[in-house]
């Protein structure tokens, strides 16, 4: 008996050491200017979960063209990425919302002057289970659903089922955008909030899993995350219609009501490798954008023009 116990401890030890070893894999410090003579330049890129797949696609393509550059991309939410940029642990923060004034103040206090780039456009799709007969909603109805005023699908022309509200966590840029532009209908004076019954899912994957499985659920997420096994709702600004489904065309011509810009932030004016990377994203990199369900920025503007906005300190 003791022997068996000993063996299982040994096994655990081996697994544990392996784990530790993997965790200790050398990661060069971000933005290490001193190490630039080495073969690899490293760019740390972190933030919005909405942007993470697109950022990965960009990074992979860019590393293919420029093998001397290494780009590591992680998600975690817009707030997470911005916080990391403020603390100086990443070079580029991805965000699906603008930086908040207090975040800019915190960055300035750290001696960091954030610079903003619009890198793509995104439509937020409202999704339900494929078996749900409801296929169109007005912005007002979506707002009423998410504030808890409408609690049953029969109130919006569906079956007699309770509505289960799904949202991203409050560190998600998608959450803030949806709250301001859909729940509050863009009214700055409004103090409406998500219903306390809203399920806050830690990831996009959490939302799509629940929507796939649960015929009561309604969720929202970036268009790039909508899988074919979810049903996308056509949205109208006014009760009369027109009800519009999100697509590259409807976002570009402005007829789909829930769309927003996606951002990258750098700590100060980008230089060297980071500057080249962002320039590439804003030009050639835009070709990848539609493949991931997002909408390219108009014209693929170069670095110094309209997509570059600098905050005065």
């Amino acid at each position, binding site marked *: *008996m003791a022997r068996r116990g000993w063996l299982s401890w040994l096994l655990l030890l081996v697994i544990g050491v392996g784990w530790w070893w993997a965790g200790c894999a050398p990661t060069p410090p971000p933005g290490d200017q001193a190490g630039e003579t080495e073969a690899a330049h490293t760019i740390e890129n972190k933030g919005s979960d909405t942007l993470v797949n697109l950022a990965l696609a960009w990074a992979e393509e860019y590393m293919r063209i420029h093998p001397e550059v290494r780009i590591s991309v992680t998600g*975690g939410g817009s707030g997470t990425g911005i*916080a990391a940029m403020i603390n100086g642990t990443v070079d580029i923060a991805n965000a699906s919302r603008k930086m908040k004034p207090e975040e800019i103040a915190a960055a300035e206090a750290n001696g960091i002057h954030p610079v903003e780039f619009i890198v793509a456009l995104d439509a937020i799709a409202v999704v339900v289970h494929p078996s749900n007969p409801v296929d169109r909603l007005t912005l007002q109805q979506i707002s009423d659903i998410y504030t808890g005023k409408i609690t049953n699908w029969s109130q919006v022309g569906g079956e007699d089922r309770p509505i289960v509200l799904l949202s991203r966590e409050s560190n998600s840029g998608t959450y803030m955008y949806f709250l301001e532009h859909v729940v509050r209908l863009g009214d700055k004076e409004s*103090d409406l909030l998500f219903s*306390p*019954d809203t399920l806050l899912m*830690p990831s996009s994957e959490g939302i799509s899993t629940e929507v796939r*499985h649960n015929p009561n*659920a309604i969720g929202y997420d970036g268009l790039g995350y909508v899988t074919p096994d979810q049903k996308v709702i056509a949205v109208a600004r006014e009760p009369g219609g027109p009800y519009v489904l999100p697509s590259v065309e409807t976002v570009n011509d402005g007829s789909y009501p829930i769309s927003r810009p996606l951002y990258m932030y750098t700590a100060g004016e980008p230089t060297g490798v980071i500057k080249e990377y962002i320039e590439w994203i804003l030009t050639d990199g835009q070709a990848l954008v539609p493949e991931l369900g997002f909408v390219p920025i108009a014209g693929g503007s170069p670095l110094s023009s309209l997509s570059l906005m600098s905050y005065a300190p």
Partner: protein
Amino acid sequence: MHPRRWTEFAIESLIRVLGLSSIGFVLLIFLFLLKEGLPAFLEIPPENLLGTRWYPTFDLFGTLPLILGSLLVTATAISIALPLGVATAVFVREVAPGWARELLKPMIEVLAGIPSVVLGFFGMTVLAPLVRETLDAPTGLTAFTGGLVLAYMALPTIISVAEDALDAVPKSYRDAGLAMGATQWQTIWRVVVPAARSGILTAVMLGMGRAIGETMAVMMVTGNAARMPLTLDSLFRPVRTMTATIAAEMGEVARGSTHYHVLFGIGIILFVITFLLNLIAAGAIFKKRRRGGLR
């Protein structure tokens, strides 16, 4: 002789330093927690802090739904894991034949090594739909689902510790029980288990500690809706726990903001609850010891 005494001294002091440093670390962590968390209790008026609305982005820091959420999930987990765990321990220690025990013990130990993310993912994709369909609840991401996953996580701890406690019951107790004409079942239920009571209580407390502190799995299966679990059906509705709140929101907050302090404040509340639980357990064990014997 001399070098040997020297190495002995070195090893002895090394062990002493290591032992003391662990106390030091706990103390430092606690101080850090206080330093970062206490401002929350000063900055935020108590009626906000004890409110029922948790919308940290809008300065509504009602921690009550989170505390109740954690307690509900933990209580559910324990009321599932306790009978199962003790029964398994009794089976492994008292009933199972030798070869089965040899097989079961390492398997239970391996059970404890499953990463909580894996359990959370399993709960999210398999358990949650099952719970929804079986109970006809609006969603499967509920306090009950969280309780199920946590019960599974607390089980290995409860079984191992309870088994050790049963193991420590002297053989003479069992012999005496059987000699008095009691059946094996009666001996186990009336003699062995009561004699191991304090150890079993420790097992439950450790399991409870595991359950209330668990984060990842809970975050994935409880739905994280900060609602007050006061109605009868709350068990089968989503809840948001303290740990999930800290984990989900800590990445976002700006250092030194009110929200940041509140999250550490929740850490303090969690610490106090765990501390009280341990205190109660220790008190109960101490009282039993003093009264002594089987009573």
